[in-house]
C-alpha cells in the first residue's frame, strides 16, 4: 500500500462515511465532504513531491490480484501523463464542494456523496494500469455524474442525463469488446505487459485487426472528448448540470477521452493510429472552428462555455495526432489548462447564475459596476482561456501549433483560426455581460465575491498564472512520458522486416 492507494481510497472512504451520517446534519455532511476532498488533495500533492521526474515509467506501483480467472489485477500507478491529471481531479473536487455549499438546497447528503464517488472514479481512471480495472473506473465515474445531472440539474436535466449516459455507455461497450479481444490474444489485462508483448513481437495484430481494435477504442474516447460529430451530448449535459457537475465534467471527465487516446490508442495500435491520423486531425480542426463559431452565437453563457470546450479539446486531439514531441506535450499541457481555465469559467458563470438566476447573456450587462472583483476574476480567466501569453493556455496552444506545424503546416493555419475566434466570442461575451448599461435587476441582485467564493476562485487563478509563467514545474515529467509514448508508436509500426528491436535498445538509440 503506497501513497497512491491512499489517495484513491480517501474519497471512497468519505463516500461510505457520508452514507452513515444522518441526512438532517447538513452542515456536518458538507464539512465531512470538504474535509475528505481536502485530505485527498493534500495527499495527492505528496505524490507530486515524491514523483521522480527523470524516470519515465510507472511510479507508485501497486499490483495485486483481484480476480484470478480471468486474470484481473488491481494494478495502479502513475507516470507523467496521469500524475497531473489525477491531481487536477483532486484539486477541483474541494473547489466544487465549496461552490456547491449554498447552491445545493435539497438532498445534500446524496449530492456530496456522489461528488466523492465521482472523485474516486476519476482518480481511478487515471491511475489504472489494468485494462479491466480501467474500464471499471471508466463506467463507475459515469454513474455519479448521471445522478448529479439528473437530480440537481436545470430544467431539461433528465433528458441531458439520459443522453449523456447512453452516449457514453453505447460507445464504451465497443471499447469493452476491444478490451476482451486484446485479452483473448495477450492473455492478460496488464497494460505494461501488453505493451512489452507488442514491443517484443510476441503479440501482433494484423493490420485489419489493428484497425478495428483502434476504432473500437477510438469511438469510446471520441465520444468522451468529444470529437466532432460525436459532441452533441456535451452542450446538453454541460448546460443542464449543476455548476459543480459542469466543472467536473468539463475539467476532468472530458480528459478521460483524450487521456485514453494518448494512453491506449497510440501505443497499442500505432500503425492504425498513424493511418487514421489525417482524418482524425481534420475532425479535430472542424471541431476547433465549428465549436468556436457555434459558441459565438450562443445566447446562453453556459452553452457558450460548453461549445468553447469542443473547440479547445480539438487542439488536444490535434496535438496527440500530430505525432510530434511538442504536439504531444502541448496536448497534455492543454488538457490541464483547459481543466483549470474552463473549470474557472464554469465556476464564475455559476456565481452569476446564483445571483441573477439566469444564464441568458441578455439578462446581464454592466456587472462590473456592482461586482468589480468578480469581473476581474472573470477577466483573468477569460484571457487565460483565449490564450494570452503569460497565462496557461498560451503555452499549451503554442506547443500544439508548433508540433502540428512540424507535421503539416496547413493544419496549423486552420487551427490558428480557432485561436482568433476564441478571442472574438470571449471578448464579446465579456463586453455584453460586464460592460454597458446596468439593468435594475443586475444592480440589485448581483453582489461581489464572498469569502467562500474567493476561496474557490483564487486557487484557480493562481494556477493559471503559475502554469503560464513557469511551465517547467509541470512539463518535464510530461515530456519524459510523452517521449516514451511516441517511441512506442514507432517501435511496432507496420510489419517488422528486420529482427525486432528490444525497447531498451531503442531508448538508447534516441
Amino acid at each position, binding site marked *: 500500500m503506497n501513497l497512491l492507494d491512499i489517495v484513491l481510497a480517501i474519497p471512497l472512504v468519505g463516500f461510505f462515511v457520508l452514507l452513515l451520517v444522518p441526512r438532517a446534519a447538513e452542515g456536518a455532511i458538507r464539512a465531512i465532504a470538504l474535509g475528505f476532498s481536502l485530505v485527498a488533495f493534500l495527499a495527492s500533492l505528496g505524490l507530486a513531491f515524491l514523483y521522480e521526474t527523470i524516470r519515465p515509467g510507472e511510479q507508485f506501483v501497486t499490483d495485486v490480484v483481484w480476480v484470478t480467472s480471468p486474470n484481473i489485477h488491481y494494478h495502479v500507478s502513475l507516470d507523467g501523463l496521469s500524475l497531473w491529471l489525477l491531481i487536477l481531479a483532486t484539486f477541483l473536487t474541494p473547489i466544487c464542494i465549496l461552490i456547491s455549499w449554498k447552491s445545493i438546497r435539497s438532498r445534500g447528503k*446524496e449530492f456530496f456523496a456522489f461528488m466523492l464517488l465521482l472523485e474516486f472514479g476519476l482518480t481511478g481512471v487515471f491511475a489504472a494500469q489494468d485494462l479491466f480495472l480501467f474500464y471499471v473506473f471508466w*463506467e*463507475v465515474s459515469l454513474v455519479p455524474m*448521471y*445522478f448529479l445531472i*439528473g437530480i440537481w440539474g436545470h430544467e431539461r436535466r*433528465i433528458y441531458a*442525463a439520459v443522453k449523456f449516459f447512453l452516449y457514453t455507455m453505447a460507445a464504451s461497450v465497443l471499447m469493452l469488446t476491444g478490451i476482451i*479481444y486484446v485479452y483473448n490474444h495477450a492473455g492478460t489485462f496488464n497494460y505494461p505487459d501488453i505493451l512489452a508483448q507488442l514491443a517484443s513481437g510476441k503479440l501482433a495484430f494484423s493490420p485489419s485487426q489493428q484497425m478495428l481494435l483502434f476504432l473500437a477504442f477510438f469511438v469510446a474516447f471520441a465520444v468522451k472528448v468529444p470529437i466532432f460529430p460525436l459532441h452533441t451530448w456535451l452542450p446538453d449535459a454541460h448546460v443542464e448540470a449543476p455548476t459543480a457537475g459542469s466543472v467536473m465534467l468539463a475539467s476532468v471527465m472530458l480528459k478521460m477521452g483524450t487521456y485514453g487516446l494518448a494512453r491506449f490508442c497510440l501505443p497499442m495500435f500505432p500503425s492504425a493510429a498513424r493511418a487514421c491520423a489525417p482524418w482524425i486531425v481534420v475532425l479535430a480542426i472542424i471541431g476547433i472552428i465549428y465549436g468556436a463559431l457555434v459558441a459565438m452565437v450562443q445566447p446562453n453563457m453556459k452553452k457558450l462555455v460548453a461549445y468553447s470546450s469542443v473547440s479547445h479539446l480539438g487542439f488536444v486531439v490535434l496535438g496527440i495526432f500530430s505525432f510530434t514531441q511538442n504536439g504531444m506535450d502541448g496536448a497534455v499541457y492543454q488538457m490541464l489548462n483547459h481543466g483549470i481555465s474552463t473549470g474557472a469559467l464554469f465556476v464564475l458563470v455559476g456565481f452569476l447564475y446564483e445571483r441573477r438566476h439566469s444564464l441568458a447573456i441578455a439578462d446581464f450587462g454592466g456587472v462590473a459596476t456592482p461586482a468589480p472583483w468578480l469581473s476581474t476574476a472573470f477577466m483573468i480567466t477569460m484571457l487565460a482561456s483565449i490564450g494570452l501569453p503569460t497565462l496557461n493556455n498560451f503555452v499549451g496552444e503554442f506547443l500544439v501549433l508548433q508540433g502540428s506545424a512540424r507535421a503539416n503546416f496547413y493544419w496549423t493555419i486552420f487551427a490558428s483560426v480557432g485561436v482568433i475566434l476564441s478571442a472574438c466570442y470571449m471578448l464579446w461575451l465579456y463586453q455584453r455581460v460586464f460592460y454597458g448599461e446596468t439593468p435594475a435587476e443586475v444592480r440589485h441582485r448581483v453582489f461581489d465575491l464572498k469569502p467562500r467564493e474567493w476561496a474557490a476562485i483564487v486557487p484557480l487563478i493562481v494556477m493559471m498564472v503559475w502554469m503560464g509563467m513557469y511551465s517547467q514545474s509541470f512539463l518535464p515529467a510530461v515530456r519524459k512520458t510523452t517521449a516514451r509514448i511516441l517511441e512506442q508508436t514507432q517501435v511496432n509500426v507496420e510489419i517488422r522486416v528486420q529482427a525486432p528491436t528490444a525497447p531498451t535498445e531503442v531508448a538508447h538509440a534516441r
Partner: protein
Amino acid sequence: MPASMAPAGVEYIRFLPEIVLILAGALLMVLDVLLRKQAREIYGHISILALAAAMAAAVFAYSSPGSAFSGLLIVDGFATFFRVLVIGVGILTVLSSYRFLEREGAATGEFHALLLFSVAGQSVMVSANELIMIFIGLEISSIASYVLAGYLRDDKRANEAALKYFLLGSFATAFFLYGIAIVYGMTGTTYLNVIHTGLHGGPVAAAPVFIGVAVALMFVGLAFKVSGAPFQIWAPDVYQGAPTPVSAFLTTGSKAAAFAIFLRIFMNAFEPIARDWYPLVWGSALLSMTVGNFAALTQSNIKRLLGYSSIAHAGYVLVALTAHSQTGTAAAMFYLAAYAFMNIGAFAVVSHLSGKGERFLSVDDFAGLAVKQPGTAALLAIFLMSLIGVPLTGGFFGKFYIFKAALSSHLVWLTVLGLLNSAVAAYYYLRILVVMYMREPSEATAEVEPLSLGLRAALVIPALGTLFLGIFPAWVLDFAGKSAALVR
C-alpha cells in the same frame, strides 16, 4: 440396466434435497387442512426451514458425488450449483411473499406447498442425467408453476396468465417429448452420455436429418421454457399477470433450471453435433436480446418491462450457449446466479410498492421513492445497475464472462450486437432510476408502507449477493468453471 437391484444408501443421500422438499410440501398440505385459520405465517416458516434443510442436503450430497438410481440422476458440481441456486431462489421467494400473501389475504399452505413442489421439480431437472428424468422434473416443476401463476383466483390477469402459461407450456412440452421420442428411436437410449457417444461417429451419424429434427424439436421446447425468441410470446403476459413473487420465481428459478437442462442436453448429449445446432442458437440469442430490449423500451407497466427484460437476459445466456465451450457454460452458470439475485430483488421492490391488489405497477408510480424511502430506492438502484451491467455488480461480470466466452469462440458480431443491445437496455432501466430519483413523490410512494422484515431480507440478501458477485466474482466463477467441465 440392473433396475431390480435396490438403490444403495448413498443414492438416497444424493436424492436427499428432493426428498426433504417433497415431504415438507406434503406436510404443508396436511397442515393446511388441520390448522385452517390460525397463524398463517407458520407455513412460510416451515417452507423456509424445509428449503434451508434442502440446501444443506444439496451441499451435503456433493460430499459424495456420483450417480443415483441406475444413473438417472447425477450429483456433480453442475447439479449442485443449480440445486443451491434454485433452492436459494425458493427461499428468497418465500421471504418476499410473506407480506404479499398477507396483504392479498391469500396466505395458505397451498401456495407454499406448490412452491416447494416446483423447487423439487427444478431440483430433479438440474440433477437429471437422462431424458425421461429431465422430462419428469420439468413436469413436476411446470405444473406447480402453472397453478402458482393463477394463484390469485379472483384476479383476471392472473387467470389469463395461468391459462396462457398452461396451454403454451403444454404445447412446448409436447414438442420436447416428441424430440425425446425421436432421439430414443435413433439411439436406443435416453441417457445423455450414451447419446453423446452414439452421436460421436456412431450409426446415428448416418441419418443426420432425423437427429436434426429431434434437436430442433427439443430446441423449441427448451427455448419456450427459457423464454428465448421466437418462442417468447407468452412471457410478458405471464410475468405481468402472475402474482409478483411468483413472477420473480418464474423469471429466475424456473429459468435457471430450464437453462440447466438446456446446457446439459446441448453441451453433453448433442455436443458432437454442435457445429450444426449453434447457428440455431445464434439466431435465437440475437433475436431474444433484440426483441426483449426493444419491446421493453416502450413498456409502462413495470412487471411487463421486467418481463421483456427477462427475455433479453435469456438472450445473453443463449449467447453463452452459442459459444459452446466450457467457459461459455461457466459464464452461463455465473450469469444465471447473478440474474437470480438482481431480478428477485427488483421484483421484491415492485411487490413492496404495488400495494393491495397490485394497484401501483406503472413505472411512474416509482416517482420520488428516493425521497420517501432512500434505502429501498438505493437497493433497487443496485439491482437496476446490475441489470444494466455497470461494473462492480454481478450483472456486469456476468455479461463480461459471457461475451468473453463468445469472443473466444470467434463470435465477434454476436458480441458486438449483444453489447450494443445492452446499451439499448440501459435506457429503460434508467427510466426507472429517473422517476425514482428525479421526480416528485407520487400517490404510490406517498402511501408506501415501511419494509416488513421478510421483504427487508428479500432485498438485502440479493443486494449483498449482487455486490459480492460484482466485487469477488472469482469464488463462484471458479466453482462454475470446474463444474462446467463435468457436464459430460
